[in-house]
């Protein structure tokens, strides 16, 4: 009897919880060449999702009343690139999402030339239409494969001061963009002291492999780990002075960061130069790049 009563209580609790778990309003959906894209509105919060219903894969979210505010830790963590160079002149961003990062960069660095590369034309269209993404006169948007863009740039030697890689999502990694050869191409279009920031993975077998792959090309880097993992490094590897540099630059950009709900109290303690991965993990190359398979395996 008690079991039956318990069952009914359980069902009742589910029913009463249903209104709380109601789906946010769907404003837009489309099937692009690469994925499904959904735009939802939940009160003040607007999100771009690649899967619907939530909570799987929120790509980008913003508050309509506070459009500058970063809602995700990882976007805040990616801007820590400015801690290694507070005033880059040429910036490359690969992966657009809702345009949060490129928008923040063009607001904070009005004189910088920003190149933005996005594979999926629909993502760019949705970002402009629903996320108020307005590239200014100093920003160029390229709709093409990030690897192909970088490869075509190599002979032009564009000398980027900062490169931000944000092309991966929870479901799929473009495997040709997580190899030693790709990172070498990225390095070759940067200034010798250029800053690399990459949004990567934290909790699968891939962690060790991507760590050794980035190390193979960029040497030592800062490892910012929360739910996401941000690699923050330099073309020539970070130096012992970089922690002091980061503190200095953090003071310069602090007001802008605080405006976006971030700040040095949150970010500076995350700058960790230590190796917490297996340094003997195999380096990923164009010949060996099973990133998605590795990302599906648990970390040993």
């Amino acid at each position, binding site marked *: 009897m008690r079991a039956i009563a318990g069952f009914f209580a359980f069902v009742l609790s589910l029913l009463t919880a249903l209104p709380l778990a109601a789906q946010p309003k769907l404003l837009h959906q489309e099937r692009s060449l690469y994925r499904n894209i959904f735009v939802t509105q939940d009160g003040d919060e607007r999100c771009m999702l690649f899967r619907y219903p939530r909570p799987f894969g929120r790509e980008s979210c913003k508050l309509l009343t506070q459009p500058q505010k970063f809602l995700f830790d990882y976007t805040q963590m990616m801007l820590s690139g400015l801690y290694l160079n507070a005033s880059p002149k040429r910036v490359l961003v690969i992966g657009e999402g809702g345009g949060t990062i490129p928008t923040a960069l063009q607001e904070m660095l009005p004189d910088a030339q920003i190149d933005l590369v996005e594979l999926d034309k629909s993502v760019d269209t949705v970002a402009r239409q629903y996320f108020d993404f307005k590239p200014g006169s100093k920003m160029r948007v390229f709709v093409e*494969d990030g690897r192909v863009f970088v490869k075509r740039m190599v002979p032009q030697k564009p000398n980027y001061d900062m490169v931000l890689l944000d092309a991966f999502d929870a479901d799929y990694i*473009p*495997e040709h963009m997580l190899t030693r050869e790709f990172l070498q191409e990225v390095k070759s279009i940067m200034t010798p002291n250029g800053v690399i920031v990459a949004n990567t993975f934290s909790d699968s077998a891939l962690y060790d492999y991507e760590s050794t792959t980035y190390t193979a090309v960029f040497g030592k880097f800062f490892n910012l780990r929360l739910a996401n993992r941000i690699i923050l490094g330099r073309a020539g590897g970070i130096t012992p002075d970089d922690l002091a540099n980061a503190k200095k630059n953090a003071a310069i950009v602090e007001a802008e960061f605080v405006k976006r709900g971030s700040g040095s109290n949150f970010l500076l303690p995350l700058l960790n130069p230590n190796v917490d991965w297996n340094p003997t993990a195999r380096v990923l190359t164009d*010949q060996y790049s099973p990133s998605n398979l590795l990302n599906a395996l648990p970390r040993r």
Partner: protein
Amino acid sequence: MAKKSALWSYTIAGWSGFYVMLVELLSGRLIAPSFGSSIYVWGSVIFVFMLGLSIGYLLGGIYSKYNPSVLKLCGILVASALTTLPTVLFGTQLLDFFFNLITDPRFGSLTTCLGLFLIPTVFAGMISPYAIRIIVKNKESSGHDAGYLYFISTLGSSVGTLLTAFYLVLLFEINTIFLAGISISVILGGLGAIFNYDKE
């Protein structure tokens, strides 16, 4: 003796089915760094493999009219394997060449695939009709024989696809898998030739 030649024909067709899908999957992998891995890149890959196989079916059928033998079938298998060798040896240089030649990723990937994979696929396509000619002994059983051969060869393809995609790329480098595939083809072709040489 008829049974022995049929057995060799089935084995070669099954392995060739495995091999052609192994090459097809790896070819997508190989060209991704230069042209991406979008639907049009896979479209180029699949187009070239289908085109190659269709030409191969045609040529294999024609070739089977001239003194068909297991020895020659082995020759076709070895030719299909050896014509993949340039991809392993000069793959990067050829990809860079096509990358610099053609900017549009659709036609870039298409041209690259045609250059690297059309010829081996034509040879691979020749195997099935040629093997059917060796196996079929009379009109009544021809449909049954052809059905059985397609069963073996397409089963080989499906196993080759899954094994490559799920496991081989997790364990080995692309060129290692290519070289292993080529070696198995050459060894199988060589053994077939040795064991069937006396009767030809």
